[in-house]
């Protein structure tokens, strides 16, 4: 059955007339995902790759009440407004592709989404793909077929590039994926490892899960806690990156805003220790993952 993205997924693209927005709309259509509408204020009435464009989400929903997923691909300064509109419209799944969203905007949107009972995946999310069924976002690019294959391993990754690399390593070794999610590498994320694990736990198709984590924050430690408490019972293999970053002066920013350590909190050691204690198998390189999964 996979999680989040299935054959009932019907997508709205916020920012569809932009360069990235129009590209991703076409990619999703080509992969068999139903893209029902797009929204760009002031551009209502146009069409992008055969997808009708509306000025507001309310207008789009009037004509396409079946929309249940929104992909946000607008510039960072406009992301908060876009999230607010999607939350107010009660769209159950909101996937934010845009990077460099101010942390205060993300925090507010997370609080609003919680109240409204809708789910945000992102910001800085490469997207969600259920191989063979459909995808939301840029994950897998124009042709995900060679890299992703259908199967029963769930993948949750803070890095978009590594979600594809890990899936390719699995596919190359004859291991397919149920759903692959790029949750994003910001400090605050709408959905974290544990949120996705909760869904994977319920999903019959998923037999085991791969986590790609990195230093900073507490999402990996929370995953370990969830496993320890028995709320997640499937096999987990994890890869954690960022030892290098810890050799730099504290506060040095690399590509992911969340990959930053102050004091001991969120350090490589803390993550490896808590995951190991929870019985998670740690891969030393991504290429070990297939063997560790089948062990």
């Amino acid at each position, binding site marked *: 059955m996979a999680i989040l993205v299935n054959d009932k997924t019907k997508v709205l693209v916020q920012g569809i007339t932009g360069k990235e927005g129009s590209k991703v709309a076409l990619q999703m259509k080509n992969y068999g995902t139903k893209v029902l509408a797009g929204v760009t204020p002031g551009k209502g009435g146009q069409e992008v790759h055969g997808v009708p464009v509306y000025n507001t989400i309310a207008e789009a929903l009037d004509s396409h009440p079946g929309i249940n997923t929104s992909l946000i691909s607008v510039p*960072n*300064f406009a992301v908060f407004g876009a999230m607010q509109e999607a939350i107010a419209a009660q769209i159950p799944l909101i996937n934010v592709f845009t990077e*460099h*969203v*101010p*942390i*205060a905007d993300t*925090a*507010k949107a*997370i*609080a*609003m989404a919680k*109240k409204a009972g809708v789910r945000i995946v992102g910001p800085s999310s*490469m997207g969600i793909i259920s191989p063979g069924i459909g995808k939301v976002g*840029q*994950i*897998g*690019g*124009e042709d995900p077929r060679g890299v992703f294959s259908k199967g029963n391993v769930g993948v949750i*990754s803070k*890095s*978009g*590039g*590594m979600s*594809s*690399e890990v*899936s*390719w*390593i699995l596919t*190359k070794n004859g291991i397919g994926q149920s759903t692959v999610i790029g949750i994003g*590498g910001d*400090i*605050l*994320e709408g959905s*974290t490892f544990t949120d996705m694990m909760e869904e994977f736990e319920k999903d019959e198709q998923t037999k085991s899960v791969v986590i*790609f984590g990195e230093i900073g924050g*507490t*999402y990996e430690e*929370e995953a370990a806690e969830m496993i320890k408490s028995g709320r997640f019972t499937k096999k987990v293999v994890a890869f954690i*990156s*960022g*030892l*290098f*970053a810890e*050799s*730099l*002066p504290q*506060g*040095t*920013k*690399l*590509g*992911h*805003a*969340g*990959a930053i350590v102050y004091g001991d909190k*969120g350090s490589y050691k803390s993550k490896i220790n808590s995951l190991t204690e929870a019985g998670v198998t740690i891969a030393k*390189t*991504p*290429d070990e993952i297939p063997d560790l999964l089948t062990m």
Partner: protein
Amino acid sequence: MLLYEFEGKKLFKSCGIEIPNSQLIEPPDEEIKIKAPLVLKAQVLSGKRADSGGIVVVDDESKLKVSVLALLGSSVNGEKVEKILVEEMVEIDKEYYLSFSYSTENRGPVMSFGEGGTGAEGKEIKIYPVDILEGYKGENVSDSLKETAKKLWEVFIKYDCELAEINPLVVTKDGKIMALDAKVILDDDANFRREEKFPERNLFGRPPTEAEIEARKIDEGDHRGTSGSVYWDLDGDIAVIAAGGGGSVVCMDALIAYGGKPANYTEHSGNPPREKLKKLTEIVLAKQGLKGCWFVGGTANFTDIYETLMGFVEGLREVKFKGPIVIRRSGPNDKKAFDELKIIGEKEGFDFHIFGRETPMTATAKTIVDLAYGKEEK
């Protein structure tokens, strides 16, 4: 961006938080208007200044000149002292810790408040989640500190901070509530809506290198992908051009694990045009004493491998790099890129070692280490 104490205090003051009378001095001969007893505070970014000689108490006017001269020339935790904040001495009755920051556990802002003891270690700090939609209204601190805490929340939100910290927050013997120190980290992603601008920091205890400044310029005003906006010069001898915010760090971990010494950290991601990669390549390879170059990335979702690698080649031609070059990439147009690279390598004499998606990304770390240092040296 981490702010200096004097910059943080300016933000505090603008929201009505009381700070001691102070004067920022740069040239050593500047006239000091604050009267002794006073405190000289080195303006450096590292913490624990007091333990490293960065805080000097001057009791007597006659010792002021010599103390200023000594501190301005010194270095604190490896960072050269270029500015001093001169502050009036304050008589402390009680001290507290107070900060607002974001917590991944609560996925929102938290207030941290601590009392008792001196220094951060002595205080028992408690953490309270704050509802960002309601705003902070003075809860969870003692009554006398409510107003200051509300003002600090105002700083935190108004200036888009990741951290706004007062340590110590003091009640003086004459009953005033004052911020004696300021630690503020601004959210760089909110720069577009913050009017206050601050100059580049010396994060590594040194001014940014020419290469760092040049690399960061590549992305300025050009939002097509990123290339060089994250660039740090390191001490090693293997030039690295890595792809992706997550994958780049995985590659650096692998390179170091195999004994490689990176000359730099940099990444490109999204879909940068070839001229951006050309510029980045020229900057990365301008260094002296490089033993090899590693152009590496995982399986790209939408980065055009042909465009980025052709940009790399154009840069190589400019700097005429003749050391071993290990390339590992996968993604859109990779085969087309590899075919052309093979021809270019033979024709123009570049020592290319090209790997596609069948070879693990991290395995090529060993390849570049072996080629750069010679197998026997490894």
